[in-house]
């Protein structure tokens, strides 16, 4: 099953969403390499979607407003 991070990836040739990831780092650092399972096209997908790993605050389920407060006028 394709990782949820890649749910919007589709084949640029046939538009199929039936793709598999071949390599997290494709032809360049900024690309992920996929293969279409419908037409066999191998393609690179630019990976930046703004996704971040969970932050420490998210992990602990807590937010601390001190930083925001301190520098407010």
């Amino acid at each position, binding site marked *: 099953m394709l990782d949820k991070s890649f749910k919007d990836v589709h084949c640029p040739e046939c538009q199929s969403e039936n793709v598999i990831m*071949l390599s*997290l780092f*494709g032809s360049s650092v900024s690309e992920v390499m996929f293969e279409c399972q419908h037409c066999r096209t191998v393609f690179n997908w630019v990976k930046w979607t703004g996704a*971040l790993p969970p932050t420490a*605050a998210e992990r*602990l389920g807590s937010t601390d407003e001190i930083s925001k407060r301190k*520098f407010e006028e």
Partner: protein
Amino acid sequence: MARFELDQLSPEVREGLKCDLLALADSKLVLANWYTTCVHNGRSLPDFAAVLGMATTSYGHTRALYLYLGDFGMDYAALERRSKPGELNSMNLLDSPPQSWEDFVAAVFLAEQAMWTFASGFLNHPDRPLSGLIRKIGEESYFHLKYCEGWRAIFAETANPRFGEALQQRFPSAVSWFGSEKTDALHDSGVRELPVSKLREAFIAEVSDAAEKAQLSTTLASEDVAKSGWELSRRRSGDVSDKLFSIVQLKDAEAVHD
């Protein structure tokens, strides 16, 4: 929102922030060298591409952090050119070279996770250049951690015990990077979102969760692991070895900068 100025910070907080960012940058530098040194042990071409990709981005993080440290009066060229092992403030976890592929993945996972957990404390930092830099680091670390996640799944599928053993062995050293201080001047002054003790707690939770998801029968040490001689200003104890420093050190440094 008032514009953030480093000069607003007390000397103690300013120095603490500088030291923490330098420890992060130096650890990224050593990790990048781990990647370049170990790439030939990759198990597939995607491994080669990934490990070299992670090396590239880790060097990039180091450079960006070194440049930011210019705001603290540190000279980029001097940071690149350090000439003694005692000047490098990388994490103890990366001092000892990997003994196997499983150990490599375990160490890299712990290092990436520790660095992101630590860096995420500055994600909402009031200085936009720093918060933007941390966000960019996070976007790239996202894929570094995903790479580790893939290998953890493989080790679990193949019931490979060596990864769990390596994780268990390296975990105390990884946790020691966070120290054991109960107070945190950077948090108290609003520079860090959570105190380091909370970042440490988040790191332990993240690694424990990852070990559980990968069905690893690993018991992670939970005792206070801060070693004697551990220095807050360097986030490490002792110096890196001459051998490790010789890998990291710029060769013929005088030729690089005028």
